[in-house]
């Protein structure tokens, strides 16, 4: 049979399958419409990054200006600061929030008492359900220079109260500590699931050979969950430039703005509050492209050095 004939046959078969399962396409219809309108159409809107937007002309009708918007952003006085702040927040966050859930999961997994394990789990997962607004509200209350718990502790130890939320230098530590507090427990679930899949035979064999718990964790548990660790690493790498808008924006005060202004809060202020649509679209696009490059390249690297990759 010629390839053309095979192709024709295949096409006929596919058509038959579409006809037979037309109801499945009805299932998909609303979701496809959603993705086209709310996910892909905004990508079409990204052309504004290369245009001078005027509301009367709309997205398509506005004039092309090439890379002007990007030039304006790169030349802006706050550009360097913005990039440094964003990288600073995300890299420090990653350094602390990435390994801690792994350690927590390893500890929970080896805990002899199942009852105590359950109590600890239920507690450490809980902060995941606290909203960002409440989380930041708690930060402000706990660090208040007059009544905050943390400053009371500092004073009790003989120190002087610190106005944490007014000092640029404390923005990143507050951000990271609260992030660790809120996400470590929840983040450990994935690794616990992976640990449940580590072969018990390996552990038994190691026991026979006289390996202690430290050795078993190090030589069996950790290698066993390595693929999960790599996948999580890739997922996290994609977020390096993408510091969550929500928390940073809420944590901003007029006094810590030098450290707390990051790309996403800048986009919000320029675009939504000041209606500089083209410039802010360009900044957003710049951020998305860097993120995409990061995810794809970390994925590529991990596929080469290990067997795990996301796609």
């Amino acid at each position: 049979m010629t390839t053309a004939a095979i192709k024709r046959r295949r096409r006929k078969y596919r058509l038959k399958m579409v006809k037979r399962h037309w109801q499945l396409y009805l299932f998909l219809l609303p979701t496809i419409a959603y993705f086209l309108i709310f996910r892909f159409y905004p990508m079409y809107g990204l052309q504004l990054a290369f245009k001078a937007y005027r509301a009367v002309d709309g997205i398509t009708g506005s004039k092309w200006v090439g890379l002007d918007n990007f030039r304006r952003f790169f030349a802006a006085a706050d550009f360097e600061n913005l990039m440094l702040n964003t990288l600073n927040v995300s890299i420090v966050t990653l350094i602390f929030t990435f390994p801690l859930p792994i350690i927590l999961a390893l500890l929970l997994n080896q805990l002899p008492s199942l009852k105590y394990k359950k109590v600890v789990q239920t507690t450490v997962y809980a902060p995941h359900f606290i909203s960002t607004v409440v989380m930041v509200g708690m930060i402000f209350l706990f660090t208040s220079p007059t009544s905050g718990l943390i400053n009371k502790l500092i004073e009790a130890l003989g120190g002087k109260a610190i106005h944490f939320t007014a000092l640029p230098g404390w923005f990143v530590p507050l951000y990271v500590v609260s992030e660790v507090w809120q996400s470590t427990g929840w983040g450990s679930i994935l690794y616990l699931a992976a640990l449940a899949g580590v072969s018990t035979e390996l552990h038994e064999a190691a026991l026979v050979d006289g390996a202690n718990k430290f050795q078993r964790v190090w030589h069996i548990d950790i290698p066993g969950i390595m693929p999960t660790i790599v996948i999580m690493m890739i997922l996290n790498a994609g977020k390096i430039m993408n510091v969550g808008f929500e928390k940073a924006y809420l944590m901003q005060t007029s006094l810590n703005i030098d450290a707390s202004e990051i790309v996403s809060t800048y986009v919000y202020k320029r675009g939504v509050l000041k209606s500089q649509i083209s410039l802010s679209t360009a900044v957003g696009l710049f951020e998305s492209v860097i993120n995409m490059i990061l995810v794809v390249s970390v994925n590529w690297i991990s596929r080469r050095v290990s067997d795990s990759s996301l796609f």
Partner: protein
Amino acid sequence: MKKAKGVTRSRADKAFDVMDYVLLTIAFLVVAYPLYFVLIASVSDPIAVYEGRVILYPIKPTLEGYSRIFSYESLFTGYKNTLIYTLVGTAINLVLTITAGYALSRKDLVGRNVMMMGVMITMIFSGGMIPNYLLVRSLKLYNTMWALILPGAVSTWNLIVTRTFFQQTIPDELQEAAELDGCGDTAFFLRVVLPLSSSIIAVMVLFYAVSHWNSYYNALLYLSSSSKYPLQLVLRNILIVNTLDDMVNDVATQAAQQRMGDLIKYGMIIVSSLPLLILYPFLQKYFVHGVMIGAIKG
């Protein structure tokens, strides 16, 4: 010889266990104490909190904070709005995610790979804040409830989790057998698939409902009238922007107003977060189940 080996092994294991208990107890306290403190601070005398005397239990218990909170009308409006947004939003999320997730799980769906590719693209690239903002405005959704619901009608991650679930739980043979018996896709979905998927439905309801309950981003961007504000925006104004006037302006001095403000804030945190924190331990297994399905590469 053999015995000695056993002894050293158990000594190292014991050291590990002790370290394990100590570290996890620290983790437990670090997480639990701030939550507990908010609770006791919300029912203590504001002066005692201010002076740092409230540490382990409430001092001079009072419900004044709560009585002020419950006479604050915006909070009720916020609560009501959030309930509506959560109910309607979650219903739409659920219908779309489950139907599409099932269709995409079918191996005999022509075009499945293209569609999955499209879905994956949205995971690594998006139009971003401003194009979305313009879209919501041009669709005339601005300052309506739909601006909080439609832009997030399907979460890519949840869609993939749902699809993975169906791939694992509904055997191809089952569907093929039903097809031979003349059972159409819709009938099969309603009569066979849905009854088998109560756990994924529970997981999705919880994931979506929690995110609606806790979200403020869409409301911040897309709502202008405060009568439509969800709970989280009302909370933001009190906890962070610090607009407390109506609630404390009967208190004499500024210092006393600040203390009363703190009391109200602690109470607000409890009032807004307690429903979830109380419900969650009972539903924990569903949440964990959901995360675990997500962990399996789809």
